[in-house]
């Protein structure tokens, strides 16, 4: 079980690294879809079939909403400012730290894989959130951060009950919708966040 969880956690983190590194919006979308779809499996015991289905459905819906806004994007993203190897190494370091510090000094009620993936996702989300000038990239960072907090919550307090799974699913959809709404409008306004100029060579 631990191996399966670890594999799932690695897939989730890989998706996050792809998401924050990619310049092409559709590639970033693929990465975040993998992350969103893999996250519900990172719990021990696994959620019931219905809550799990609800989570998967909500993740698919959120990804679809993001796809609606991303498919017509004329401009590629800036991508990671530090490059994908750095992102991947930082996420790996955080993964190891999360695995090693399970419970943070107190008994944990969830799997170490969830803590590791949560730490890695939070680390990967830092750069897009702090330095993200494009709404789509910033939004992806925020989705990763919220997903990371959910994973850390699973590792600390155990598998959520069905109603909480449902609410988290709803939160994922609303977050995806909000990011998609802002991204579509940002693309229409054709300018990056904060009114900063685009990088030379990326003008429409």
């Amino acid at each position, binding site marked *: 079980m631990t191996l399966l969880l670890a594999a799932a956690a690695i897939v989730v983190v890989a998706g996050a690294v792809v998401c924050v590194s990619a310049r092409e919006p559709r590639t970033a979308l693929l990465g975040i879809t993998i992350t969103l779809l893999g996250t519900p499996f990172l719990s021990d015991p696994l959620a019931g079939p219905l809550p799990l289905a609800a989570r998967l459905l909500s993740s698919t819906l959120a990804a679809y909403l993001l796809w609606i806004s991303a498919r017509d994007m004329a401009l590629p993203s800036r991508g990671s400012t530090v490059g994908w190897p750095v992102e991947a190494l930082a996420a790996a370091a955080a993964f190891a730290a999360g695995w090693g510090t399970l419970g943070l000094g107190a008994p944990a009620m969830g799997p170490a894989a969830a803590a590791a993936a949560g730490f890695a996702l939070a680390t990967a989300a830092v750069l897009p959130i702090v330095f993200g000038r494009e709404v789509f990239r910033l939004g992806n960072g925020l989705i990763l951060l919220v997903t990371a907090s959910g994973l850390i919550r699973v590792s*600390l307090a155990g598998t959520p009950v069905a109603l909480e799974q449902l609410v988290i699913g709803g939160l994922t959809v609303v977050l995806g919708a909000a990011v998609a709404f802002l991204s579509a409008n940002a693309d229409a*306004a054709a300018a990056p966040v904060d009114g900063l100029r685009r990088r030379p060579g990326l003008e429409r």
Partner: protein
Amino acid sequence: MACDGVPVSNADAPAVSVLPFLATSFGFGILSLLTRSLTGVSFAIGWLGLLVSAVAALAIVPGDRLSVGGEFLVGSEYQRIFLAMGCSASLLLCLLGWSASNSGTWQRNLPGASLAAFGAAGLALAIPDPMTAIAATVAAGLVGVLVSLVVPITSRRVGVGARELRAIAVAGVLALIAMAWMARPLGALSAEPAVVGLAYLAMAIAVAFRFGAIPFHVWAARVADSAPEIGLPLLMAWSPAVFAVVGLAWVDGSIAPLTPVPLALPLERALIVSIAAISLLLGAFAAWIQEDIEHMVAYSIVQDAAFVLLAFGPLDPATWQPVRTWILVFVLAKTAFAAWVLAIRARFGTRRLGELRGWARSSPTLTAALVMVAVATVGLPGLVSFDVRMALVRLASDGPARAVLSLGAIAALAYYARLLAVGLADPAPGVRAVAGDRPRWPEGVALAGWARSSPSLDGPRAAPEASSQPGMAERRRSRREALFSVRARSSVQAPRTIQAPPTAEAPSAVQVPPAVQARSSVQRRSPIQAPSSAATRWAQLGPWTVRLAELLASRRAAAGRIQRGRWAVRLAELSTRGRAAAGRTREAAQPVAERGARVAERGARVAQRGARAVGRGARMVAGVFAASPRWAGPLLDVNRTLVSSVLVLALALAALVAAAGGWGGPAAARAPAPEPGVQGQAVSPDKLP
């Protein structure tokens, strides 16, 4: 059945009173958002949804429990009042925004987003588990992003929306991790003050983030710059308020029992009280110096939200009742204040305080509304709002800090006083040109021309010779000129020149920069002043209906006269012929024929009179039809000024009633909890395991 004044439902019966509210709010909200391309339909669905949701919220039974997915949804009195007030206030706000906005400036997502946000808030207040509840409150906040953008959408506005999204998500993550940290058996760690203190501080800072407390206020200030004023209550007051209620319930249930009050966590508590004090003082100062009244609303929200933050300071269950009462007053008062700003901007076409000189002289209704908002917010000794503010200050501080916080509590008077002082000053030209609160005839209808040609309900129509009298014509001309001059000033960019002294040799006028002119022309355009196309079309029907009725009446009169006269004459002729044929002499028949002709003439006159009566009736009906814009006007745009004032007054009154202890607020806040841990219900330490 009742328990300590709180009615609770039968435990055996299926308790589903929370479900109708959730179903209606989410259902109508999603429907309204999906139909948002059809603005009118979306508004109608959203408005109906808010109405139904307000009723459904009132039907929530405190203590009602429903098992869902291993958890319970529990109804509470506070939840009932909060949601009913929220839906009702949004109902009025949407109506006000709809009536005061043009089709291009109306924030079409507002009804749907409000419904979805209140649905999520209702869910959060019904869930006993704080982690699930906080996720629901984050969702409620995120829905608000949909109302943060308004046409025209620029990169700057999108950037502001992104900042807001970031603040909501980061605050939610902080709160969720703090809750998860404390949601497990901590063992020996629970004795470590730093462990508990970190979680406590994270939650308080998350709440400070959500309210935009200083120094976390940058996103809030930008939102005020970008979002429409009608969306500010949802973005900055209602959604963060639910977040704070859940956070307070969690602190009361998870942190306070672990710390001996009031000695524990002094550093963390001092930090939180300091943030609250800074927000109280600097928020009031920032609101006071603003030139834009929408920014004033935003900073006033920041300032008043500091009392909620203050409640995190004492770690004392005694803060629970005052802070919950204050949250009810706060959200209503800030909604009324935002509505007041919207009404002011819609009427005077500007948000700049310098251009609003004399607004109070023009609008006593809005003056009364502002006074009510100020009284509801700051309160008077004896009013609940004043008492709870002072109680929070008392519980959170002592010594010199208490004096500082008390000063902050009444500092809000400064910006309200400034608004009133500006309103009572000599009116600015733009304010002078705008009509007052008095109900008035539609200018658009008058311009369309029907008022002159239609039979007015004011009285009999003026005779042509009377209208050609010099005085009458003079008045009519001057009125038309006045109307057109107002329009020219308001929308057609009249040349704004500053006249130089006559002695100066320089060009006689200094042109205002084009950017200023453009801004001014945008601001001057008052939606209330401009009749909608629907109303104008409706009004243009007036002359046509009158003409149609006149035509019908004259045709009927002519037809009646001719036909009835013809028949009478023919009858007389027949009679005459008959008598002649019977061998009477021509002389004998003559008087009979003359008499018959007289009868015929009389009959024709009667017929003519009858036809005139029919014509008058038809014209009267047509007049009523033609004048219907005057009655339908308040619902369209004729008296939108009055409607908006009344709506603002209603919201201000609601805030005042809440501040005076109405709406069951304090009673609800004092009500004992049927279940420990339910958001919106007091949780005392002795109830916890």
